[in-house]
């Protein structure tokens, strides 16, 4: 987790303009190290989701490049803003999907992933029978089942209530500490980004570009004590002020 680790993926001067003429990203640079937890923080419409989709290969940059120093190999896990589950099949089959699509059989991996997010007992349930938080857990289990090198999360907890969100934040950190995968987490919540990340990339809106980066040097494991600590409050204030400047278009 030191800054000396290898780079997993980097974006170099990425521009993205949609067919509608909307400029989502301009000259966006990002470098993510192995095992790191990075958040992209910015207001909605600042292109952070677009950046994530470009990294996932779901969208092509108009200019610039995505570089994978260790080769683009290694599966990517993606967690969308909505749970994005197949409603016609049960939790286990939803989690099994990525394996099935690559013709792999790994029942143990499905059970592991479900157990990791606390859904082991709900394997036979259908998505509609789950609460919002549980659906999101299922979605995370699906992203983990291929044991991806890189986990991309696009505001996964934005639609959840605060109690559920805090719980999922803690569980996500626990999974991250255990598996040590690289996580790129998109959020518009200052509090969430500070709580989770080692490093926060603050973005400016329209077009999206990197404004500045803030390290959150607080040690892990982080828990409710950290959430109520003076340090946490201080980091939040710093990040919020920076975000304010980014939105006003001032200097970092």
């Amino acid at each position, binding site marked *: 987790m030191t800054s000396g680790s290898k780079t997993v993926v980097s974006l170099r001067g990425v521009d993205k303009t949609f067919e509608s003429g909307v400029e989502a990203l301009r000259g966006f640079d990002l470098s993510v190290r192995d095992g790191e937890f990075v958040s992209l923080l910015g207001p909605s419409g600042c292109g952070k989701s677009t950046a994530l*989709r470009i990294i996932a290969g*779901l969208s092509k940059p108009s200019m610039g490049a995505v570089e994978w120093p260790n080769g683009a190999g290694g599966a990517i896990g*993606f967690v*969308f803003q909505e749970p*994005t589950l*197949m409603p*016609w099949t049960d939790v286990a089959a939803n989690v099994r999907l*990525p394996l099935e*699509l690559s013709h792999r059989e790994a029942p143990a991996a499905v059970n592991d992933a479900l157990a990791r997010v606390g859904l082991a007992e709900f394997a036979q349930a259908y998505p*509609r029978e789950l609460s919002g938080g549980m659906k999101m857990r299922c979605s995370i289990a699906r992203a983990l089942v291929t044991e991806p090198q890189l986990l991309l999360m696009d505001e996964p907890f934005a639609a959840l209530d605060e109690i559920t969100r805090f719980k999922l934040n803690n569980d996500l950190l626990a999974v991250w500490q255990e598996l040590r995968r690289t996580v790129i987490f998109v959020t518009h919540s200052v509090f969430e980004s500070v709580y989770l990340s080692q490093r926060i990339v603050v973005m400016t809106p329209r077009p999206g570009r990197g404004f500045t980066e803030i390290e959150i040097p607080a040690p892990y494991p982080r828990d409710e004590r950290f959430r109520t600590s003076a340090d946490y409050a201080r980091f939040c204030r710093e990040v919020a002020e920076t975000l304010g400047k980014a939105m006003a278009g001032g200097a970092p």
Partner: protein
Amino acid sequence: MNERTLRIALPLFVLVLVLAVWQAVVSIFAIPPYVLPAPGLVLSTLIADGGLLWRSLLVTLGITFEGFILAAAGGIVLAIAFNQWRAVEYSFYPYAVILQVTPVVAIAPLLLIYLPQPLAVLGCAWIVAFFPVLANTTLGLKSVDHNLLALFELYKASRWQVLWKLKLPAALPQMLAGLRIAGGLSLIGAVVAEIAAGSAGAGSGLAYRIAESGYRLNIPRMFAALLLLSLAGVAIFFVLSAFSHLMLRRWHESAIRRER
């Protein structure tokens, strides 16, 4: 009374009321049976002509069933082809629409000229029934959650995996809605074709019995045959609804009772 009882009792009450008024009107005004037969006479005709009408019903149901199966298969296969190859959709969709909007009553006599009669009747049943399957399945295949499509793309799913594992299951509710409409329509198509054929003096289906009874002023038998046809339509609707419910009951909102 609870809601379930009411839902059965109220329509039954209306039925009894209508039958009673009907019977009373026929008795009081002494209307002859060749103008309006009383419900009792219709029922006794149904029993007396039971064998004949039953055989005719089976003929009509057979054609309806064949037309429905062909329409379902044709509609679904065509919808998949449209979805997979845009050129196919652009080439054939306008003609599917033309086939649909041209009244089948007007097509039936032409089909009867070019095709042997059983095939022509089947053709009519197919023409009216396949379009709702095609249109609904096409819509269903197109309304897949974009994020799920992105997910399949992320895991490098093949085109056929996307079709089998994503698009077809996602389209199932719309497809079943199309099939439910097609069931009723294939009965209509079969009846229309039989009537058209019947006036040419051939056929033995239920609709032909209606036309034939009309010529002979056997009005009670007309009513009896009509009753059987409408019961057949109701039965088709219920069978298809039950099938649809069975397929969707675990996951689709349409099949799940709201808890209050």
